[in-house]
């Protein structure tokens, strides 16, 4: 459950991240691949080495989707329906991996925002990412 203050915070944070979407997204992915190497198994079709074109492009897509979700928190299911179908029928990522990526997004935000990533902001983003992942995994079965 997100309070109105939390929803505001979430929108603010992702608005700030949009201009540097490529940087944030690719860093989060790189952190995930380095800390949890098994996650690389889903990307054998891409060059996911540090600073690669694929990594930057993919990272940007993800942050843009997150920002879109943040702007439409009350209608996440409908907003994310195409992405949800994609993750269920094409990508078929084991759902435990969403948590690993969410953690790496949070670490990336923490590195970039420092003390501005307050405990309250951390809680709001954690809840948002959980809700987002739940929608992405909704159609799995």
């Amino acid at each position: 459950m997100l309070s109105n203050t939390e929803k505001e915070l979430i929108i603010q944070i992702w608005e700030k991240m949009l201009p540097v979407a490529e940087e944030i997204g690719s860093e989060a992915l790189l952190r995930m691949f380095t800390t949890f190497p098994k996650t690389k198994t889903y990307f054998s079709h891409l060059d996911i080495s540090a600073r690669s074109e694929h990594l930057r492009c993919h990272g940007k897509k993800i942050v843009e989707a997150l920002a879109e979700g943040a702007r439409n928190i009350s209608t996440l299911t409908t907003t994310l329906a195409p992405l949800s179908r994609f993750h269920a029928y094409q990508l078929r990522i084991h759902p435990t991996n969403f948590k690993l990526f969410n953690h790496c997004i949070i670490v990336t935000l923490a590195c970039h925002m420092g003390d501005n990533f307050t405990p309250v902001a951390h809680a709001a983003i954690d809840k948002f990412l959980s809700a987002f992942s739940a929608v992405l995994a909704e159609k799995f079965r």
Partner: protein
Amino acid sequence: MVEWTAEERAAIQGVFNKLDYESVGRESLTRCLVVYPWTRRYFGGFGNLFNAEAIMANPKVAAHGIVVLQGLEKALKNMDDIKNTYASLSEFHSVKLQVDPVNFQLLSDCLTVVIATRLRTEFTPDIQAAWQKFLAVVVSALSRQYH
């Protein structure tokens, strides 16, 4: 037996050298109690934990944060045998404190996030990986004595 490369040992020691136990300990435990409110069930004797402001100002949370980091230091000093170093601590968490081990991962993640806010770009993906490997071994050792 866990294998540590020289780079991993250096990375982990490097992170520790930069930790102010009081500040990082307090904030890690605070975040755990704020981000994952069900963890408050284990701190009934700590007084007011009703909201983020109260938790951040709570002196018992601050004191306990230091205890947690001192415990981690023990693991750092015995990196080649964390399992046995933590045997009695694990038993204590399972028998006396009755903590669901799933929660160890939550505090571990909060600690990583606090370190990220302090070290910022210095907390590179490689250093994060080494640090999280260390915490994974710690969490595993703490979870062993549950029967």
